[in-house]
């Protein structure tokens, strides 16, 4: 197995994808966020409860590759029980971390992000890593009660 692949499929990613955090259907939640990639068929749902400006008990379920599943598991872990604004900032930070358009050295704002650093080397897998984060970010943007400042 070559080093590039080992870097992409780090132990944490394999672990997350085999036993993802909060993986399950919670249809009786306040909001369902759908994350579909029509090109590859990845298909996830996030089950979200928003209580007093806080995301409670976020779960996800669906079908996709190891990278997308692990990335969604980390997402759910990081935004569960987080204040809406913080959750939004977390999404922005992750997407910025993976954004390879600006070559500036990346500061890892959360150690959990680091597992995905090798995705930079695999542009074809970028969508897998970012799909859920983009959809959750969009959802948070659309929640009227939240006012975001560019942080």
């Amino acid at each position: 197995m070559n080093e590039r692949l080992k870097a992409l499929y780090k132990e944490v990613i394999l672990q997350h994808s085999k036993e993802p955090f909060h993986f399950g259907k919670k249809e009786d939640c306040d909001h369902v966020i759908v994350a579909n990639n029509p090109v590859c068929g990845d298909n996830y749902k996030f089950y979200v409860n928003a209580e007093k400006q806080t995301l409670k008990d976020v779960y996800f379920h669906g079908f996709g590759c190891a990278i997308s599943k692990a990335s969604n598991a980390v997402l759910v872990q990081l935004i569960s029980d987080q204040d809406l604004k913080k959750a939004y900032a977390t999404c922005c930070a992750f997407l910025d971390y993976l954004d390879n358009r600006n070559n500036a050295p990346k500061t890892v704002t959360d150690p959990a992000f680091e597992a995905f650093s090798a995705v930079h080397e695999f542009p074809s897998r970028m969508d897998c890593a970012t799909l859920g984060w983009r959809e959750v970010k969009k959802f948070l943007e659309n929640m009227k009660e939240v006012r975001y400042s560019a942080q």
Partner: protein
Amino acid sequence: MIDPQFIKSHFPVFRHHAGLIYFDNAATTQRPGVVIDKLNDFYSRGNANIHRGLYGLSVNATTNYEAVREKVRDFIGGKTKESVAFTRGTTEAINVVANTYLKPRIGAGDNVVISAMEHHSNLIPWQQLCLQKDAELRIIPVADTGEVVIDAVNDYLDRKTKMLAITHISNTLGTVNPVDKMVDIAHRKKVPVLVDAAQSACFYPLEVASLDCEFLAFSGHKIFGPFGVGVLYTRPDLIEDMLPYNYGGGMITHVGFDESTFMPYPYNLEAGTPQIAEVIGLAEAIDYLRQVDKTEAIDHVSGLAAYFIEELNKIGKSAVIASPKERTGIVSFLLDNIHPHDVATFLAEDNIAVRAGHHCTQPLLEQMGVRATLRASFSIYNTREEIDRMTDKLTEIQRFWS
């Protein structure tokens, strides 16, 4: 016998990518040097617009472009070259039939029949037309073997059926359909048939005249030809029913501000400046294919598929999707419960190109109970040694994953 190494030497891509194992031929084949040279040659020595110029270059370009119709007629075993229209590809050809032939002939309560294994491009044009016209889209089921239930075909057709649109070969499962039987069944009920030959045109004799289908479509890029060119064959007795698809220059007989009259099929479908170089390049691909014995080619690619399945079965926890009696060189499979994209990424690191996903057949995969598969599709430049490399790698991936 097919000599894959000799054939490979005709394809420049393998010189530029030493060690490339290209198993994505169902998506697009590679191009032999002669086809690439032909495009270059046209642009370097023969470039001019057709149909309008009176000078030598344009006259020659027109002659060369029109000569391809005859070449295609011969290639597909048609009767007249006027039954051959150039399109951008299979997708456009099917849309043309749905929107110019069928649209005026279908109404509320009528139906169109397709199979469950159609590529999205032989599904959505009919689906959307049926939605517009309040007609019904009927789907002939596919058995677990990956074969269209042939005994059911008859039951799906009735007096209200306006078209049977069926693929010759499933791009996902590799199934070769008995299209001749299906055409017979449809014709007994006076139902016209469109055959999607995207996956079969390369090696399978089409023989449209004896098949007697009303329409047939395929793409140049899947038969060693250029991108952006495809063929729509229309049975000669129906060409007067084919109306223009796009309007513009090149397809008119008279234009006034109030009304215009149009050239007959196939010219009425080729509005604007067509893909002249690509059409001419397609002829070169057909010439190249002429040197390949079709029976040997079919034996080669389906032999590779059989060999791959045999080797794959030796790897525990792998699964081949579908087991049709007649299979071309296309195999959809799964490795353990590892997602196809992850497997494909691993294979890509070893220079092995396969496809992972739904292969533009989402409803089919849903029916087969899978969301995505890996697909290996073989051509005449592929070898057993390449398959061994892939199965070795698959074994390694599985070990890494477990």
